[in-house]
């Protein structure tokens, strides 16, 4: 068990709880920066994919995990980010300007969408955002002059100050670009959570009525959460477009929205870690399944069989498993494990048991 002696309020304001923790994260940072020299190009590509998922995951985590607003339509905002970025570059806007602008535009679209659905809660909000996802798919098909309709668009090469970055030609550079965006989003997210607005978000999630009684403007705070969330998701969408190389309306279909939501639930709702853990699962699971499948067919000499739907099936199983046995996700499990060892042998089984509270003033409204 570690006792942290705090000597000033800055100890609680700082990004890390104590020096060893900061060192661990420094080690992690060194590892991810050195990754292209440690693994081959294929895995650098896979790691890029994970980072893109993580950016989108952070976007959705802010909205669903921290502000408590479910969204089943985040693929739509990925699409907005992706198409606006590529269209801007096609019209001569330099990449370094187009990418942040794509995020800003996706964020503004998020705010506009948020305004009419602000009054909806829970399942109704989920359905409204689901409708947005479906509508966006149709809109992309209809808006053919800009979006290329069902044919889609091809991502142009990324040029930063004459340096050309290509997903296949220079996977390491594309990885670093994605890593940089990840770190920027992460820094903003982390800063927000220790500032008044971040606390207002979690306050909204836990009790709208008392957040209001503390002076939190519900409508404006929710719209801000939507805007920031959709902005980050838009950045991820833009990067996904370049990662995929070519994309059309089907790239950003409903399945993507659902995968995003699955990702943050599996990772652990209400923590930034959760977005990354979830991204690792979602990013690597298809490869893992393929490896296991090939292994099994190799052992039993089945040839190259493909089982349709195996991937979604296993995703579904994992999700059901988590909801039943570990609703706090991978991060929640990790926290319990850590506490177990920190307190050994004093850990109690029901230490993290959530108390049920039946008294709620929400029914007042």
């Amino acid at each position, binding site marked *: 068990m570690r006792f942290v002696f705090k000597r000033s*309020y*800055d100890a*609680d*304001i700082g990004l890390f709880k104590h020096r060893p923790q900061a060192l661990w994260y420094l080690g992690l940072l060194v590892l991810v920066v050195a990754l292209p020299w440690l693994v081959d190009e294929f895995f650098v590509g896979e790691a890029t994919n994970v980072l893109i998922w993580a950016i989108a995951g952070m976007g959705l985590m802010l909205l669903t995990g921290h502000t408590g607003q479910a969204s089943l339509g985040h693929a739509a905002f990925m699409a907005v980010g992706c198409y606006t970025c590529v269209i801007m570059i096609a019209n001569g806007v330099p990449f370094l300007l187009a990418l942040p602008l794509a995020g800003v535009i996706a964020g503004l679209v998020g705010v506009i969408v948020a305004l009419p659905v602000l009054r909806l809660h829970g399942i109704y909000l989920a359905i409204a955002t689901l409708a947005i996802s479906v509508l966006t798919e149709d809109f992309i098909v209809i808006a053919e002059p800009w979006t290329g309709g069902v044919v889609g668009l091809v991502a142009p090469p990324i040029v930063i100050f004459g340096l050309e970055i290509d997903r296949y030609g220079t996977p390491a550079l594309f990885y670093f670009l994605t890593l940089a965006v990840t770190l920027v989003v992460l820094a*903003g997210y982390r*800063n*927000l959570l*220790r*500032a*008044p*607005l*971040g*606390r*207002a978000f*979690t*306050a909204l*999630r*836990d*009790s709208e*009525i*008392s*957040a*209001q*009684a*503390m*002076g*939190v*403007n*519900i409508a404006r705070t929710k719209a*801000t959460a939507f805007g920031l969330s959709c902005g980050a998701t838009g950045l991820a969408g833009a990067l996904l477009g370049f990662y995929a190389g070519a994309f059309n309306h089907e790239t950003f279909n409903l399945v993507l929205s659902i995968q995003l939501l699955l990702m943050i639930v599996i990772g652990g709702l*209400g923590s930034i870690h959760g977005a990354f853990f979830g991204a690792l699962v979602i990013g690597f699971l298809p490869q893992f399944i393929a490896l296991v499948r090939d292994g099994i067919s190799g052992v039993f000499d089945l040839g190259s069989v493909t089982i349709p739907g195996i991937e979604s099936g296993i995703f579904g199983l994992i999700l059901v498993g988590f909801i039943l046995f570990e609703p706090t996700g991978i991060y929640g499990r990790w926290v319990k494990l850590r506490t177990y060892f920190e307190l050994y042998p004093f850990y109690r089984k029901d230490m993290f048991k*959530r*108390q049920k*509270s039946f*008294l*709620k*003033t929400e029914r*007042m*409204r």
Partner: protein
Amino acid sequence: MSLLVLEQVTVRFGGLVAVNDVSFHVGEGEVFALVGPNGAGKSTVFNLISRFYDPAHGDIRFREKSILGLRPDQVPALGIARTFQNIELFEQSTVLQNLLVGRHRHRRSSLVSELFFAPQVRSEERRHRQVVEEVIDFLELQAYRDKTIAGLAYGVRKVVELARALATEPRILLLDEPASGLSLEETQDMIFWIEDIKKQMGITVLMVEHDMNLVASVSDRVLALADGKELAIGSAQDVQSHPAVIEAYLGSGGRAGHDG
């Protein structure tokens, strides 16, 4: 000077008149208690002042200005803080985080400065923390500072809610049943705290309470309500011995038995 004035306020929920033509004023530095049987409209009065409900008639003025044009989230900015009967804390956050949300009305930083955690945000955070720590010291919550609400006992949560309201640095504090569900000692603590809030901090207190011991020991004036109507107003002793109040609590049978 009257800090808070309710003038002939009436609230209807459909056909039910929850508050019927109630008028009272709370003076600066006073502890004012609302008592009455269940369903008398006490909590409705609170929800009117925090603007969760709109009155059908009447006016509510705070420092001479009507607050009926305000949204619920604009009320705390005036210096009106409240607690809830059923405890409305942010369950998944720590006590410290909860109290810091109480500082939200003093937020001066913008979204962009918070995204970068600008130096100004940091210095404001330190100041918020300072105020919160004073409240923690006052209510002796040091041991619970970093505990999550979900794991706290009922009595502690009640104190945390009071602390969160105090962290807003209010001019008037609305306490909705501060002693309900508390043990005898905890209620005793609550009595001392309310006295200190009045005397040391100079905060006006308006409270709803059933525990007549607490009401009698701290309040300057008491208003008894029943079925949304005013029954009696005055000192705790006067109100307790008022025939209409006794009738509201015990029913007219009590007096009929006395006469016959």
